[in-house]
């Protein structure tokens, strides 16, 4: 079978609604899972600093387990395994305006938990990179632990955290393909459905590969802009604006700011 350029172009430039829906799902799942994973990572990193041994042990076990088993196994385990063992079954959630199917929830949970383990290590490295004198100064001013973390340590740790966080999100965009095995119709499964209907394996996989390349390339530009602003640890001068202000400026159109 020869490569059908016409077919390729058609699907590349006029993607079907199934494909576009898959693209939308991929983006949603990536952003949500990365956000939850980052939140877990911050909590986990604080846990590694806890003075209670039990909390440190729980965090160590969690990162050991999530980083030591394949993501694909985790996804199937959380969705199919837990249900088969009658432990927990993900049911569809009806929000009124939209229904979130159980398999998408399970996919997000698995990706978030997996990402949280990696983010725990990244955030921990960030916290440890901040000079201990900062903690002492904040304590001497009467700040409690959580307040000094939020106001003093994490904003400084962000410089060390943000570059690897960008790489994590790049990986996340591609790791979402794994939730296709539990039937989430994201970009890869949407493509596979079209392959089944047309048998154009080469053309359609080329199209989907180009879409992933476009996503990661666009993210690469965004990452470079963000790194320039906050993430360069070698930069001795502080940022000219707060992180929240900077993100607002980068992400929001002028009239919303």
């Amino acid at each position, binding site marked *: 079978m020869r490569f059908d350029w016409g077919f390729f172009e058609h699907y590349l430039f006029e993607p079907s609604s199934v494909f576009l829906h898959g693209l939308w799902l991929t983006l949603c799942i990536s952003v949500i899972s990365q956000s939850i994973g980052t939140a877990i990572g911050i909590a986990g990193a604080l846990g590694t600093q806890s003075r209670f041994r039990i909390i440190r042990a729980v965090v160590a076990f969690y990162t050991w387990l999530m980083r030591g088993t394949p993501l694909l196994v985790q996804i199937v385990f959380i969705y199919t395994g837990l249900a088969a063992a009658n432990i927990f079954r993900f049911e569809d959630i009806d929000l009124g305006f939209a229904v979130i199917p159980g398999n998408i929830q399970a996919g997000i949970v698995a990706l978030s938990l997996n990402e949280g383990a990696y983010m725990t290590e990244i955030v921990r490295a960030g916290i440890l990179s901040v*000079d201990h*004198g*900062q903690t*002492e*100064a*904040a*304590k*001497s*001013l*009467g*700040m*409690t*632990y959580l*307040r000094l973390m939020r*106001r*003093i340590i994490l*904003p*400084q740790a962000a410089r060390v955290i943000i570059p690897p966080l960008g790489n994590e999100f790049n990986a996340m965009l591609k790791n979402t393909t794994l939730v296709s095995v539990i039937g989430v119709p994201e970009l890869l499964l949407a493509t596979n459905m079209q392959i089944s209907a047309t048998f154009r394996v080469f053309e359609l996989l080329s199209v989907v590969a180009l879409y992933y390349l476009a996503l990661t390339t666009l993210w690469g530009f965004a990452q470079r802009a963000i790194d320039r602003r906050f993430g360069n640890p070698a930069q*001795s*001068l*502080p*940022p000219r604006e707060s992180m929240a202000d900077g993100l607002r400026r980068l992400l929001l159109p002028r009239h919303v700011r």
Partner: protein
Amino acid sequence: MTEILQAIGGVPVTSTEKVVEAIDVDKWFGAHQVLKGVSLTVKRGEVVVIVGPSGSGKTTFIRCLNHLEKIRKGRILVNGQLIGYRERNGRLIEDSERNIARQRREIGMVFQRFNLFPHLTALGNIIEAPIQVRGIAKAEAIETARALLGRVGLAEKAESYPAQLSGGQQQRVAIARALAMRPSLMLFDEATSALDPEMIGEVLEVMKELAREGMTMIAVTHEMGFAREVADRVVMMDDGRIIEDTEPEQFFTAPRSERSKAFLARILH
């Protein structure tokens, strides 16, 4: 540089005559005892300078006063309140984090390495704790911070980041940051030791002014000129003990112990 404390409404009021009362404090680092039964009382408005060879425990001791270091034995009271611990059946139990943080509000500390927050401007450094910890309105905190910056000669540097300031300027901001909490006690931990020689003077000037205005201060320092000029008492520490606690004139002209004499001979020549 005059009337720095006016910026925070004058000398903070304390309820007790004794601002600091340390009784028989022991402190260990692992198997090494760094404080051996240290007792010290500092009255309201007093300026106490602690001197001594390195490793004598002087820095560790003032870090115990705001519970940056735990103690093994003894009592430390600031304004009559037991610092860092609760007493239960005669035993000391470490206090809750919240209570310790509350006690630290009353105790300003200036560090050898300044420890300014590099992601905040000079003004941001000063208003952070008053707003976050004391719950003071932002406008009021800014007003106080600008007044303080003006009094330490840095009115134009409010919007500068620490990396854009010289060491001396950073340390003056750090003093203003501590004062903004209206502490009743100021601790200086070798506040001029990390400075280039030409910047030591500007920081000492601020410290001297605070002393003249009646701030209760404990300063660990090697600046003997400062001790001689403004200290009410000079405390000499050696090997984890206080070996001399006397007026500066007496200390510099006729020290009682041999070790004080040896120390002075080394440091003054």
